[in-house]
C-alpha cells in the first residue's frame, strides 16, 4: 500500500506542477498537414503532399507544420486535425483516403478552416452520406492516365513482356492497372507490333511480402521484362526481385520511386505536390474550390512520369510530351475501373492479358 501511495503521489505531482509552466501562449501555424499511417518521409502520399505544402509556404512566407496522429483510427485522425486547428491552422491537408471520415466530421466542426483531402472524398463512417462542404475539397487522380503513360512508355522503349502487380483490387489500383494495359496496347499499335503480353495479379495486400517477391521473381524468370509494382510497400518486393535478376525493370507508383532502387525504369506518379500547391494557392487567392471533387488528370498536371529520373533508352522527352498532349487534349479515351470486370477483358490481338489468381 505504501507503493500505491508513492506512485499516486508521483502522478499527482507530475500532473499538478506542469500546467503552471505550460500556460504560455503557443505559436500558430497557418498551414498544416496531418500524416496518414507512416511518417512524413514515406516517399509516398505524406511526403508528396508535404512538399507541395512546404513549397507554397516558403514561397509566400506562411507558417506551416505537420502533425502525427497517435494511432491509426478515425478518432485519432480527427483529434490531430483538431490539434492542428487549435494551433492556428487555416488550411489542413490530409493525404490519403483514410481521412475521408475524419474530414467529413471536421468540415462541419470547423467551418472557418479549409480542408484539402487527397485521394478521396468526405463521407460518413458508414458510407451512407457523401458530402463535401464549402470549406473542403476532395482530390482524386486519373490513375488510368498515369498507368497509361507508364505502359505506353515502356512498350515504346522496346519492352513487350510486361507484368502488373497490384496490392488490392481497390478502384485506384484497378485504374492504374487498366491504364497500364491500355497504354501498352496504344504504343504497340503505334509501333505496329503485336505479341505484347501482360501478366496481371493482385497480391491482396499493400505490404511487402516474400510471396510477392517470389512471384515477381518467377515472372522475371519466365521472361517478363518490366513489372508495374502498384501499391505501397509492395513495390519494394518487386524491386528486390528485379535486383536479384539481370536486366529486369520495375515501374514505381504514386511518387518518383527512382531513389528506392536503380531498377526503377520510371514511376506512374500522381501530381500530389502540384495539386496540393494548386489547392493552397486557390485558397489564398480566395478561390478555394470548396465543395468540389477534383479529378486531376493530365489536363491539370495531376498525373505524369518523372522523365528526368527515368531510365529509358528509346523513349524520349519529345515522345512523352507528344503523348501527354494527347491526353490533355482528350484524344485518348480510357477504360476505367467500372468499365471492365476483369483485366483480361482488355485483351486484344495485340496485347494478351493473363490474369494470375
Amino acid at each position, binding site marked *: 500500500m*505504501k507503493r500505491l501511495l508513492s506512485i499516486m503521489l508521483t*502522478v499527482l505531482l*507530475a500532473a499538478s506542477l506542469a500546467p503552471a*509552466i505550460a500556460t504560455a501562449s503557443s505559436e500558430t501555424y497557418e498551414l498544416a498537414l496531418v500524416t496518414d499511417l507512416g511518417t512524413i518521409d514515406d516517399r509516398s502520399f505524406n511526403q508528396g503532399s508535404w512538399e507541395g505544402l512546404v513549397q507554397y509556404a516558403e514561397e509566400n512566407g506562411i507558417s506551416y507544420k505537420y502533425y502525427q496522429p497517435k494511432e491509426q483510427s478515425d478518432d485519432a485522425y480527427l483529434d490531430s486535425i483538431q490539434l492542428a486547428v487549435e494551433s492556428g491552422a487555416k488550411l489542413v491537408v490530409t493525404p490519403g483516403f483514410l481521412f475521408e471520415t475524419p474530414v467529413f466530421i471536421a468540415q462541419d466542426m470547423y467551418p472557418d478552416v479549409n480542408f484539402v483531402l487527397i485521394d478521396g472524398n468526405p463521407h460518413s463512417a458508414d458510407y451512407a452520406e457523401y458530402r463535401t462542404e464549402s470549406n473542403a475539397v476532395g482530390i482524386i487522380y486519373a490513375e488510368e492516365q498515369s498507368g497509361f503513360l507508364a505502359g505506353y512508355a515502356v512498350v515504346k522503349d522496346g519492352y513487350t513482356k510486361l507484368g502488373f502487380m497490384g496490392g488490392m483490387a481497390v478502384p485506384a489500383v484497378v485504374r492504374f492497372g487498366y491504364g497500364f494495359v491500355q497504354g501498352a496496347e496504344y504504343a504497340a499499335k503505334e509501333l505496329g507490333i503485336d505479341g505484347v503480353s501482360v501478366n496481371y495479379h493482385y497480391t491482396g495486400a499493400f505490404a511487402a511480402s516474400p510471396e510477392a517477391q517470389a512471384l515477381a521473381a518467377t515472372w522475371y524468370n519466365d521472361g517478363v521484362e518490366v513489372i508495374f509494382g502498384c501499391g505501397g510497400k509492395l513495390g519494394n518486393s518487386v524491386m528486390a526481385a528485379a535486383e536479384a535478376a539481370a536486366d529486369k525493370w520495375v515501374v514505381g507508383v504514386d511518387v518518383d520511386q527512382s531513389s528506392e532502387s536503380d531498377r526503377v525504369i520510371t514511376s506512374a506518379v500522381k501530381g500530389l505536390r502540384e495539386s496540393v500547391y494548386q489547392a493552397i494557392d486557390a485558397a489564398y487567392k480566395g478561390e478555394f474550390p470548396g465543395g468540389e471533387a477534383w479529378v486531376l488528370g493530365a489536363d491539370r498536371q495531376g498525373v505524369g512520369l518523372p522523365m528526368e529520373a527515368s531510365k529509358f533508352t528509346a523513349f524520349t522527352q519529345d515522345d512523352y510530351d507528344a503523348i501527354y498532349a494527347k491526353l490533355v487534349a482528350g484524344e485518348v479515351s480510357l477504360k476505367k475501373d467500372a468499365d471492365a470486370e476483369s483485366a483480361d477483358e482488355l485483351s486484344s490481338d495485340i496485347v494478351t492479358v493473363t490474369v494470375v489468381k
Partner: protein
Amino acid sequence: MTNRKRVNVFGAGFTSALSSIIAILVGLAVGFVILLATNPAQAVRGVGIIASGGFNGGMKGVGQALYYATPLILTGLSVGFCFKTGLFNIGAPGQLIVGAFAGIWVGANASWIPSPLLWLAALLAAALAGALWGAIPGLFKAMLNVHEVIACIMCNYIGMYAVNYLIKNSNAYDPLKNQTIDMTRAAIPKAGLDKIFYSLKGRFMDASSVNGGIYIALALAVVMYIILNKTVFGYELKACGLNRYASKYAGIQEKRSILLSLTIAGSLSGIAGGLMYLAPAGGLHINVVETLSAQGFNGIPVALLGLSNPIGIIFSALFVAHIDQGGYYLQRLEYMPQIIDIIIAVIIYFSAFALLMRQAIGAIQSRLNSRSAKRREGLADAQEASKHD
C-alpha cells in the same frame, strides 16, 4: 541509552514515493536536455507540456490519456504478474493480438447474441484466446523446460502472422482498408465516460475515446492484487517466483504454477487486445501489418515502473499514458514528431529505473542517519565533558 531504537528519518513509504518521484524527475530532466538540444527557445514550455500530459487537451485530453492507459494497465499487469512468479512474459504483444482477433471474430460472427451482451462475449473470447496463447509458452516451460522468453517471442510472431492470415480469410476483413471491419455492435460501451471526458467544439460535443474498458482494467488490477496478496494461489505463485527449490520442498507444484501464471498473464493481455480493438467505426481496427503490438511491449516498462505491484501498475500505466499524451501535445511547438518519440521514450525508460533509485536513496538515508547519530553523540560528549569541568 544503548538500546534506544533509532527512529528512521524517513518512513519506508516515503522512501518509495520519493524514489518514484525522483525517477520521474530524472526522466523529465533528461527529456529536458534533449528538448534543449533540439530547440532551446521552447524547451521550458516543452517540458511543461509533456508534464501536463492529457491536461493540455482539457477533459477530452484527460480522457484520451485514460483511453491509452487502459491496455497499458492490462499488459503491465500481465508482465508484472509473471515477474512475481519469476517469469518474464515478453509474449504480451502476441497474446494481445490473438485475443483481439478472437474478440473481433466473435463480434463479427456471433450475431445471435444481443448487442448489449455481444461485447462481453467477445471480450471473454479475447481473454480465452489470450490465455491459450499464454499457456503455450507455459506448457513448453513446464514440460520441456524451454525458456519462456524464447517461447514467448516465437508465439509473438506466430500470433501476429496467424492473425494476419486469419483476418484476411475471415468475414471480419475490410480489404479496402486492409483491416478488420467496424465492431459497432460489439463495441465496448462508453459507460457514461463520454459524458465526462469531452470538449466543446462550437456546437459539437467532442467526446474522448475512453470507454468502460478503463473500469474493467482497474477492476482487474484490484483482482490481481487480491490474488497475489490474499490468496493461497498467490502465495504459491510468489513462492515459486522467489525460490523454486523451497516451493518444491513445500510441496507446491511448480509446473502448475508456471502454467497458470502464464495462462492468467495471457488472458490479461488478451483482454487488453479486446478492449483496444472492440471499437466502433471511429476506433482502432487490426491492420494487417507485420508489426508487433507496441502496447504489448510497453507492458514491460509499466510493470517495472510499478514495481510489479498491481496497484502500482495502475499508476505507472496512467503515468506512461499521461506523458505519452503530453508528447502528442508537444506537437503544438516546433518539435518534430520523431524527436518527440525519442523524448517520450527516454522519459519513460528513465523513470522505469525507480528500483535503482530506491537503492540509491537507501544509501543516502543510511549516511544521513549515521551523520545525525554522530551529531547527537557529539552533543552528548560535550555535555559529558562540561559536567567534568
